[in-house]
Structure formats: C-alpha cells, structure tokens
C-alpha cells in the first residue's frame, strides 16, 4: 500500500513515513476484514487542508481507565467531512458483557449488567467501527484512552496493534488555551467544561454516541477558531506521541 506523502512536503510530520510503514505491516499481518480494509485505505497527506479531510469522532465507554484490565462497554461514532458533522452516520454499538459491569462505571454510563447482556460481541462492534473508519481520521477527547483500548482489543482479537492516526480534542484545546495565555483551571480540559466555554449545548445523555457527537462538535469549534478558512494542514491537528509516529 502506498502512503501518498510527497517527500518534498515540508509540513510532513516527523515519523510519518515510519507510521505508514507500520500500517502496511499491520495490514499484512491482519486477517481479511474491516480492520485490514481500513488499514489498507490510504491516509491523506499531512499537508491536506482540514476542511477537505474526513474524520470520524469516536467515543468508547469502558469499565475503567486501564486498557490491560478494563473492558469496552460500548462504542459510538459519527462521521465528519471537514468540520461538518453528519448525523446520518451517527451510530453506536453496545458490547456484550463478559463479566459483571463494575458499579462505579455503571453509575457513569448507565450501562448495567442487564443492558450489557443485550449487546453484541466485541469483535462485531469493532468491525462496525472499522467499516466506518475506512478513509477517515479518528477524533476523540483524551485520545490516548481510545487508542489504548482499541489497540489492546485488536491485539487480542487479530494479533496486531493497528497504528491509527487520531486527533485529540483535549490536547488541541490545551494548546489553544495556552497560546491564548489563558490559565487552565482544574478540570478545565474536561469535555463538558470545554464545551461550555465554546457555547456548545449540554447533553443529558452520557452514552458513547452523544460523547462522540460532543467531541466532534468541540473539534468543529476548535477548528473554527484555529482555522476559520479551513486551510490548516491536517498534520497540525494530529495527535503524535513519539511511540506512535
């Protein structure tokens, strides 16, 4: 699979080439299916304008914060074409529980044992997600968590840790606030707090779907400030920890 990055592109983020190679390798080791198809779909160049890039805002509800120990309860997503969210693509999957849902997380997500029993197998849920993800860049609030859980799940199910490019709205907002010289209060980077700051509505629901929509809206709000004309290169909004790129 070709990674269409021009060698002369000065906006090319460091490690992008390595990232593409790892994707190709992961795709080869992956069994045929939606994940493999997603990994084989070419990534846009890092220089492409955000307005013309395609995203998928994603949220996972989990039983805890540790990908090694905790489980995915549900996955929600909605597609974005540039900064425009398309509700026609809004979707979520509830994952069938393999054990009891810890009380602490049930309080937050309202996903009880009973509801979780009505879900589908994790593999089916992930396949639906990866079908939606093909050709799109993931957007999540506090992306490390989403990446950690998805990689762990894929490792277990397919034997690969897929390198997935992702936009982290938390990190973007933090940068924007620091650049504006604004102090960041405690909890100031929580999704809800940031949304209030940008005049976004409060949603009652705390399911994976509405949290995905919420993250997508926050991304749109951040983009409108950082790049009113949408010409900002995609590479500038991507979340790039050293181990990823």
């Amino acid at each position: 699979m070709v990674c269409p990055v021009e060698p002369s592109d000065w906006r090319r983020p460091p490690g992008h080439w390595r990232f593409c190679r790892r994707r190709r390798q992961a795709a080869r080791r992956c069994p045929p299916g939606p994940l493999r198809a997603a990994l084989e779909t070419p990534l846009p160049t890092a220089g492409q304008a955000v307005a013309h890039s395609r995203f998928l805002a994603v949220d996972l509800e989990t039983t805890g914060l540790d990908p090694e120990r905790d489980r995915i309860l549900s996955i929600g997503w909605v597609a974005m074409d540039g900064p425009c969210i398309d509700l026609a693509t809004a979707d979520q999957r509830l994952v069938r529980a393999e054990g009891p849902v810890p009380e602490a997380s049930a309080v937050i997500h309202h996903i009880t044992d009973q509801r979780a029993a009505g879900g589908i197998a994790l593999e089916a849920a992930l396949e639906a997600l990866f079908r939606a993800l093909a050709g799109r860049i993931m957007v999540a609030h506090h992306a490390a968590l989403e990446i950690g859980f998805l990689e762990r799940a894929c490792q277990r199910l397919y034997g690969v840790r897929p390198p997935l490019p992702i936009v982290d709205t938390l990190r973007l907002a933090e940068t924007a606030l620091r650049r504006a010289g604004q102090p960041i209060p405690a909890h100031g980077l929580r999704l809800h707090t940031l949304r209030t700051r940008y005049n976004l509505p409060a949603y009652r629901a705390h399911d994976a779907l509405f949290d995905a929509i919420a993250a997508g809206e926050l991304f749109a709000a951040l983009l409108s400030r950082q790049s009113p004309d949408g010409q900002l290169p995609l590479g500038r909004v991507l979340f790039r920890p050293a181990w990823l790129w």
Partner: protein
Amino acid sequence: MNGELEEIREFLDQCPDLATLPAASRSALVRQLTLRYLRAGSDFPPAAEAGLWILRTGSVEIRDANDTLQDRLGEGDAFHVPAAPGHRLGPVTEDSLVYHLPLDRAQALSARDGAIAEFLAGDAPRPLGAPRGAAGDATQGLLTTPVRALMTPDPVRGLTTLSLREAARLMDRSDISALLLHPPERPQEPAGILTDTDLRRALAREQDPEQPVAEFMATPLTTVTGSTPAFEALLRMARHDIHHLPVVQEHDGALTGILSSTDLIRHQGTSAVYLVRDLRRADDLTALQGIMQALPRLQVQLVDTGADAVQITQTLTTVIDTLTQRLIELYERDHGSAPCAFAWLASGSQGRHEQTVFTDQDTALIIADSAPTDADTWFERLAQQIRAGLDACGIRACPGDVDPTHPDWRRSAADWARELERVLHHPAPRDAMLASHYLDLRVIHGDASLFEPLRQHALTTARRHEALLSALADQARDLPAPLGFFRQFVLEASGEHADTLDLKMRGLLPLVAMARVFALNAGSEARGTVERLHAAAQAGVISENTAANLVDAWLYIAGLRARHQAGQIRNGQAPDNALDPSTLSTLERNHLKTAFRLVSDTRKSALANAERVRG
C-alpha cells in the same frame, strides 16, 4: 443497531418554527441533518449554502441588501434558504452550533415526505402581521362566544302562585318581556316562563286575570348552560320557536341568568353605537354605571368580529370619552355651570386613543385665565366628583394621582403655558415621565382653544431642544426589555403575576415611548402610536420600512392583549395585561417573539438617530 438521537429530536420538537410539522416528519428530519459550528463574526449561511438552518445555540442576524436588520435568529429558530443566495444573508453574532438540512437532502426528503415538502415550500421568511386564524367573522363570534358572556345575570323571578295580573304588573315594573316562575319552596329551580306573548294570548282569549299564572306559563323549560356556545343557543331558540332561554349551572341546574334573542342580536350588532347613545341619555351615576357594565362585553364583541387593535382601542376610548363628558355635564346640571371657560383633558392611553377595558384615569384640567378668584373650589369639586364617578364606572382612579384633584394637574392657562415651557424646553432628567404625559394630553370636554394652541407652540419649539429628545429617548431605552439573553420572554419574577408577561410594560410602552420621540422629532402633532409612526416616516425620521414593522408590531401586541382580555372576560375573570406565554400556540408565541425582537432591535438603532435634531 443505529444510535438513538432522541435528544436532538426532542430539541426539534421544541422549535416553534417546526411546530407545524407532524412528529413523524421531525423524527425523519433528525437523521438527515448535519451539524456546523459557526464562529461569531463569520458569514451566514456558511459558504452561502442553501437549505434549512436551525440554531441549536448562539445567534445570527439576517440583513437585507441595505444592511437593515430583518430578523435575529436565536436558539431554536429555523431559517430556510430555498436557493443558494450567492452572498451572505447576515453575520453570525454569537458562536453558534447549527443544524443544517442541505439542499440535496431536503429535496430527497421532500420527495418521500409530503409534510416536509409542504413545510419547505411554504416556509418563507416570517412576515409580521395578523396571526393566521386570529380574525373571524360575526358568525364565528357566535360560534365561540359562550352564553355566559351575553346573558342577563340574575333575572327577575316570580312565584308560580302569583295571579296573571300580579305577574303582568311585576313584568311591567321590571321592564322585562319574560318572567321566570318558580315554586315557593325551590327559588333556584324555575318551573316555567311567562312571556309577553303569553299575556297577549291570555288577553285575547278573555281569561280571568286572577287565575294563577301557572295555568299560562310555558313548561317544561328549555334551558342552556353558561358554557353553551351562543350559536347553539340561537339554534335551540329557532327550533323551539322561543325567544328566551333560562341559563342554568351545569352541575346542579341552579338558575344563573336568562338569554333573550335580543341579547344575541345585540352581540351581532353595533353595540358601541347603542352604548354611546345610552350614555348620552343617562340621567345619573347609577344609570351610567349600569350602561358601563356592558363595556367588557363590547371588547369581547369587537375581538370576536375580527376588529383590529386600532379599531378596538379607538372604540373603547370613544365610549370612555363619552362617559367623561356625560359625568361633567351631569355635574354642571347639579352644581350650576362653570364660573369660567375650562377644558377637561386626558393623557396616557386615553389621550392617545389607545384604551382597553382594563384602564385607569390620566386626566388634567385647564382653567381660563379670566377665572374669578373663588372659581377653584368649583373645579376642585368637579375634579373630585369626576374621579369618583369614573372609578364607580370601572375606570380606576390613577394610583399616581395624575388627575385634577391634585393642583399640579389643575392649572390656569397661563400656569399650564409656563409648566409646558419648563418641562418641554428645559427638562431635568426626572421630567421625562412628566413630558411624555404632557405630549399625550388631549381635550375631551370644554373649550379646546384653551389648550391646543399651547400644545402646538410647545411642540414646534420643543423639537428644537435636544435635551427633551434625549430625555425621552433615554426613557424609551430604559423601559424593561421584553426578551432575555436567550431570546426567551422575560417573565415577571414575583407578585400576583409571577411567570407571566406584562404585555403593556414590556411590549407596548417601549413602542409608545419610541413613537413619541420619533413624532416629536418629526414635529408631528399626532398622539396615537400608529399615527405617530406614520408621521415620523413621512418626515423621514425613520424609514418607511421601520415604521411599517413597528406598526405591525404594535397592532400585533395590542391585538393580542385585546384577545387575552376578551378571553378573561369570557371566563368571568377580571381583565389584565398579564399574559401567560404557555397559553399561546407555538405560532403565536413565535409571532410575539418576532414582534418583541423588532421592538428591541429598532430601539437601539432608531432611537440613536432620532434623538438628534435634524437639519
């Protein structure tokens, strides 16, 4: 499984603009929407895109080619752009999250869903004006007016044991054409009715007048309840060929009134004319009081026949003017003619010809300079008597003492001239209230030449004085805004009318105050708000467009108030200005919001222009 977008559908359900859509169509709409974030200062619609736009948060202005504000969209407002405009329609004024139904999806959806097709085809930018379905013809009035509103309450009754002669005497004495008869032990349960026709028939057949009336009365009775629509009562009369219907309570059948065919005819007819004629003929306060009891009914009738706010308020003001004139004439009859020429003036809504049935007294007195020294006693007593008389007839005495029992409002012509000069030419900031009262003064009775030249002189010179214009403009600006931050109605927070909207304070008074400034700047002598707005447009103080919009807003808010009060009268409640917005249909609520928005927006822009003397 598709994710549930319940919360977004719930939001659409609350949007007034989408209220005409069936719920199923709104649900179908949700999944076709896209979401955009529009930053304050950016252009609306983004990329000049067509389609249906719905604001989830924030606000957007719609402006025409001359950059004149057409509408301001807030949370929950929808705006349909049927075709790509090729340019921006206005600025985004607050960061906004908007739902967008793109044109291609709108067309696809319309092909599947007739209701949406119709909605999108008919959803032109909202014009102000009469709300749909508000006006009605006289028949419709009869259809909706309950019998309770038209009947004569507490009718004269007689015992079934009376003789025919005694019954005839009772009817003659009470001047009635029908007598309800009840058995001695059950006074609330009429057993029969005796009418003029029955008496005529008895006489023609040479019946003994000492026979008991029970032999002649019609029984059993055909009755109606108070809530029966008048039209149904009319049908019942026609069907039974009768002219009187006893009105009874629904739950226990107790008698509450009587409805005659004349009552129905009067409801259809020009009762204002009769009312004024009756007032002119009335001989004493008691008679005037009795006639004025019909005033609430007159307002109900005017509303039901589809009269607009100008017609309604002018008619009611004419009746109250006539009442005042008659009270003064009666005083002169009883206390001798006035010691010198004088004029009785009205200010406030009466001065502007804008009264409703819920009104109070704003009056003044001007006395000729030739008055003999002891004349004031006569005028002071006149003032007291008229104040009490109006109050007895349901026109409340002013709580702020704007009436000539107070020497400030009872002055000689020379004194008034000085006072007008002081307040209109060199107003202290706290004189704005007084000045607006003075500008609305109108002669109701007496010698108009005592006052009109003073007013004309004051007006033509006062408009050269910026101090008055800016004092009045400040006053207009300071009146409480009707719409809150999120374009919601600002409701009264406490007191008897908590959680209601004061249509007068928040809607009409800001408009009235604005029109006063415009008219003063235009040098117009007009007093009515609509008249003043037209005069100001003619003189170029405001644009024709602004004037037309403000006139529409006034007609709508004043019309809504008249309907609100008519509804209260029908339900047997005391009329007031406190409207509960939740009783409005979503369409009406939306209409009212648009009218309020217009008032708030114009207030900012137009007042700033109008407070400077032109040329």
